[in-house]
């Protein structure tokens, strides 16, 4: 009961943040709906109805874009036609595909933040990991069997990402260099390193000067979960879920995780307790980078199939928002990543079907992030008292 209550208390603010963002999004849909607004003078009731219908259509399209149309799924399943089933469930699987790298990077952010390290370098660690995986896969092409290439690419990519994360951790522990600055700068360096690597013939796709790597799905691919045509969802998603469990176990059940959290909460008390604070920082940053790198590896070897320098598309930054939305808890990261994934894939359909601009989706996402980042704002709106009122009664 106690556990349930605390779960409810923890979820309240994030849920309210999302709801508030959707409500504000609805307001924006209404006031940008010029067709109905122009009728406001002549026929206000119809105008209002039309505007609200627009909101309903928009969010409806978003829902079915993110999770599919239930009726269609049922019909397709009954028909037994593989192609129909694939088309019907694709929105749902695409949501999971979009969520997968968000889970990896969200966990990466959660672990580093738990250690008090504001790792802004998720993007760089993800893409360096992807570079490691791509290089390994292409190097091994034709030399080793596909299964070996797959495992080697993911492992090398993970280590690359970890190394890229370790650098700012090492700099912080040894020299005190602030991780916000070093991780941001390493993002730029990572992007340029990848661009440079994609110049050479070894990785680059033959023909055309585009900085894109060869397509690897022809010789190595992460196995799919569903044996259906056109479904990208693969075991990368399952590994992401496993990593969430592993991260949770690591943080809350192991002594290294305890050291890491202690250093994050209170560095001096950790030192007084005989812990090596620098060690915790370096470990946290290595693990954080490794998770982001693993996420990037699964993208290039699996769902995306090739490396380009805009592979991440800001995932590393969205991960910060969703990790905060999740309260830095691995289970929460999974839920938040699913939400963000649904917003992304659902938003695409919303744009296509209802004529509501795709930009509005970013607008709603930004609102969610803003409300999450400022819990005081949500508290003020809904007049929720802070968790522990600290009365100044100390005499």
């Amino acid at each position, binding site marked *: 009961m106690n556990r349930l209550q605390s779960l409810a208390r923890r979820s309240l603010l994030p849920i309210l943040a999302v709801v508030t963002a959707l409500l504000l999004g609805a307001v924006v849909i209404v006031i940008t709906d010029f067709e109905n607004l122009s009728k406001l003078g002549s026929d206000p009731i119809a105008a209002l109805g039309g505007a609200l219908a627009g909101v309903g259509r928009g969010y409806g399209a978003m829902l079915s874009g993110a999770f599919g149309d239930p009726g269609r799924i049922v019909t397709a399943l009954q028909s037994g036609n593989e192609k129909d089933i694939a088309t019907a469930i694709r929105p749902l699987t695409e949501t999971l595909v979009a969520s997968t790298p968000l889970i990896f990077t969200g966990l990466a952010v959660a672990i580093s933040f738990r250690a008090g390290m504001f790792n802004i370098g998720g993007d760089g660690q993800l893409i360096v990991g992807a570079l490691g995986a791509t290089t390994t896969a292409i190097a091994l092409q034709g030399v080793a069997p596909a299964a070996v290439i797959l495992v080697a690419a993911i492992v090398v990519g993970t280590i690359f990402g970890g190394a890229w994360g370790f650098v700012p951790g090492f700099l912080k522990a040894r020299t005190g260099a602030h991780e916000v600055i070093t991780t941001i700068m390493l993002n730029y360096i990572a992007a340029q390193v990848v661009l440079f690597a994609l110049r050479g013939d070894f990785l680059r796709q033959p023909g055309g000067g585009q900085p894109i790597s060869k397509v690897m799905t022809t010789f190595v691919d992460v196995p799919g979960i569903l044996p259906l045509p056109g479904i990208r969802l693969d075991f990368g998603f399952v590994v992401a879920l496993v990593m969430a469990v592993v991260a949770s176990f690591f943080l809350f059940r192991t002594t290294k995780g305890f050291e890491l959290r202690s250093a994050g909460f209170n560095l*001096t008390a950790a030192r007084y307790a005989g812990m090596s604070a620098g060690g915790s920082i370096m470990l946290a940053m290595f693990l954080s980078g490794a998770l982001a790198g693993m996420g990037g590896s699964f993208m290039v070897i699996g769902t995306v199939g090739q490396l380009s320098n805009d592979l991440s598309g800001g995932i590393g930054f969205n991960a910060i928002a969703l990790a905060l939305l999740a309260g830095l808890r691995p289970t929460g990261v999974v839920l938040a990543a699913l939400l963000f994934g649904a917003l992304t894939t659902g938003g695409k359909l919303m744009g296509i079907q209802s004529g509501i601009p795709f930009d509005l989706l970013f607008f709603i996402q930004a609102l969610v992030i803003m409300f999450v980042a400022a819990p005081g704002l949500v508290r003020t709106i809904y007049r929720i008292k802070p968790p522990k009122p600290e009365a100044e009664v100390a*005499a």
Partner: protein
Amino acid sequence: MRLELRDISKQFPGVLANDRISISADKGQVLGLLGENGAGKTTLMNILSGLYRPDSGEILIDGETRVFHDPAEAIRAGVGMVHQHFMLVPVFDVVEAVALGAETVSGPLGTFNRAAARARIVELSAQYGLNVDPDDKIESLPVGVRQRVEILKALYRHSDILVLDEPSAVLTPLETEELFGIIRSLTAGGTTVIFITHKLNEVLEVADKIVVLRRGRVAGTAVPAETTRQALANMMVGRDVELIVPKGPANPGEVVLRLKGLQVRDDRLEMAVDGVDLEVRAGEIVAIAGVQGNGQTELVEAIVGLRAIDSGEMSIGDTRIEHASPRQISDLGVAHIPEDRGRDGLINAMTVAENYILDSYHRPPYSRRGVFDLAAVAARATQGVKDFDIRTPSIETVAASLSGGNQQKVVVAREFSRPVRLVVAAQPTRGLDVGSIEYIHRRIVEQRDQGAAILIISTELDEVLAVGDRIAVMYEGRIVGILAGESATLEAVGLLMGGAEFGGAAA
């Protein structure tokens, strides 16, 4: 009646901080307001000084009801407040610091009339024997003088009701005596003084009447001539307390901690510990007395391995520890109760259970091969909570929500949960209520009787005298005298703390 607070109540979420409190003071009187932490003293004074509005009750000055909407109104009504933490700009000189916010201005541009302000400060300083040089920089002044500058600030604003919040906390015994002299000259001039403290000796010495607060209520009133320390302490706590630490004679054994020619620098690289020689034996309590900032903090940090030493020797038993890590030192059986428990001793955001294992989390039974045995952690933490009477809703409660006394008990319970050869306790009872102080002292004496060597660092003379089998006084980085506990007097220790040479004992 110069000042009267009538039936003041103030509710905070979950706490009734003031419950129908009435106090009064005449012109030229010293009212001693005595109470433990959390008794409601500061809340009451914040109401008087206009920081809070009372939920009910009224403030009367010269029999007239007054409502203060903000501190400025209270100041205009003559209420001056000297806070525990001084509010002075370090780079200002005394004239600027005192005049700040109440500048005398002249000319069309409203320029600061320094000469007028200075003249008034000189006059006030002479009138009340404050002995403050108006041209000194604040940062160059000792704490005792800064406090007098704060008093000057109140007087400069024509305050004749002066509230002093725990004024002696930062002072040497000698400076405290001087402060009492100043209070007497203030009251002779007609000022009413409200003296807030939790120190029994002080109210008995300086107050004309005493009001004791407990849990937001008036627990009783007394007149110094007709009461005793014991009676006041009982009133404060609400039960009979032991003011004297019950302990038998020490039974010193072999030397556990040995320091020889120890030199340690502080963060600004000044020599903070400058040649300390000290031995602490098994079965004895050595108490280091001294005013805050004379090298005690650095000394403790060096002993427990948190601060590199400059030169000298340190050993525990036969093991040299000059270059040992905090964990190596703790593994030698050293329990450390740090000076600032909120910053160094506890992780406020973690639970009682997690804090209980903060320094032995990596050992069995708490963990095996790097994985916690949560059942073992819970079992030991539950036992610790029971053994040390820690008042907490559960072991899953975060440390931040415990009271200061219970937080300190978590620290002590943790440190004493391992085999202990040496206890290094820095300010072990700072900010605690009488009941918790009594309890922690008893536990420390218990460790001594079981054969541990104890080193206590305290700025509270009462504590040093009560628990020390030997008392070493530290001044400017040196041990300037070591006295036997039973023959040490308040005066002798107080003089040494102020830097006086003492017989041949001076180092």
